């Protein structure tokens, strides 16, 4: 229960930062950033939140069901944008994957060369 309270607390802090302090990022994302920082700084111990976080992320798919059920009604309203939707879903996703994959491969190789030079 402690873990759940901590996570809700960080979610709440994100909400406050977003709506009261006007930080221009979505409130749950702010909560994510704050909790990540707190973990790295050692303010929050991993054991405190590990079990609750595992529960929430494991069942994340369930939480999407109501939103997606609503989206089934949206799809006909796609109208003029259907071609853009189809292209970005298929070709777009492929391009993003390749860009990221090739860049990471190049970066990892460079790193290996550098460590080899030093050693």
């Amino acid at each position: 229960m402690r873990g759940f309270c901590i996570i809700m607390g960080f979610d709440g802090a994100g909400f406050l930062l977003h709506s009261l302090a006007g930080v221009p990022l979505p409130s749950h994302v702010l909560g994510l950033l704050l909790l990540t920082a707190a973990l790295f700084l050692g303010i929050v111990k991993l054991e405190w939140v590990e079990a609750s976080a595992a529960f929430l992320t494991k069942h994340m798919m369930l939480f999407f069901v109501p939103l997606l059920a609503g989206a089934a009604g949206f799809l006909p309203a796609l109208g003029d944008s259907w071609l853009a939707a189809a292209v970005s879903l298929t070709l777009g996703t492929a391009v993003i994957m390749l860009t990221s994959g090739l860049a990471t491969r190049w970066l990892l190789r460079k790193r290996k060369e550098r460590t080899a030079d030093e050693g």
Partner: protein
Amino acid sequence: MKDSLLADPLLGTTLTLAAYAAGMLLYRKFAWLHPLISAPLLVYLCLRLSSISWETYQIGGGMVSFFLGPATVAMAVPLYKHAMRLRRMLPSLLLGALVGSAAGLIVNASCVLLFGGTSEFLRSALPKSVTAAVAVDLSGWLGGSPGLTAALTVLTGLFGSVTGPWLLRMCGVSDIAASSIAIGAAAHGIGSARLMSDSEEQGGLSGFSMAASAVFTPILLLPVHAWLL
């Protein structure tokens, strides 16, 4: 009697849970039918057949989707755990995920601009390569439609998880770390879940990349947000 039962959150929560459980069972039988496709369709069909209104369903449905918020925050934990484990490769992996996030935004935007789409569609499609909870949050923030974004995000993830491993191998990215990072950055949680079923190491790497993209994408979107609104 009937009205009071309908007005209770019990209806929406039960229907959602039942559809999800049924979706998981179906997935065990038919591996191609992802629960994120079948479960929402089941809810949609139930509502259609029973003439229960969308608003009535949302009394309970809204309670279920509320937990998306805490679940987004909870992603800090896997991010932290993987970062600790991957410390040595961390700079290269983080940069790779950053490149993936930037490519995601540029490619998603150019697809809409090149192939014609409404402004609302652009706002909904921009964040579709990031994990769905964050994508939905970003979509509302950019003035898009969160429901549409959820659908686009899930379809992106499904496409990426099915074609990704094969496509990357074909194009010479045989390095496990690089391809896992790429799949996490482009196909978020659905891609990671697929890799997780192959090996824990790949799943972890790709989960790390998904979480890193969930942090990078909003930051990269800041100037876009300022320009759109």
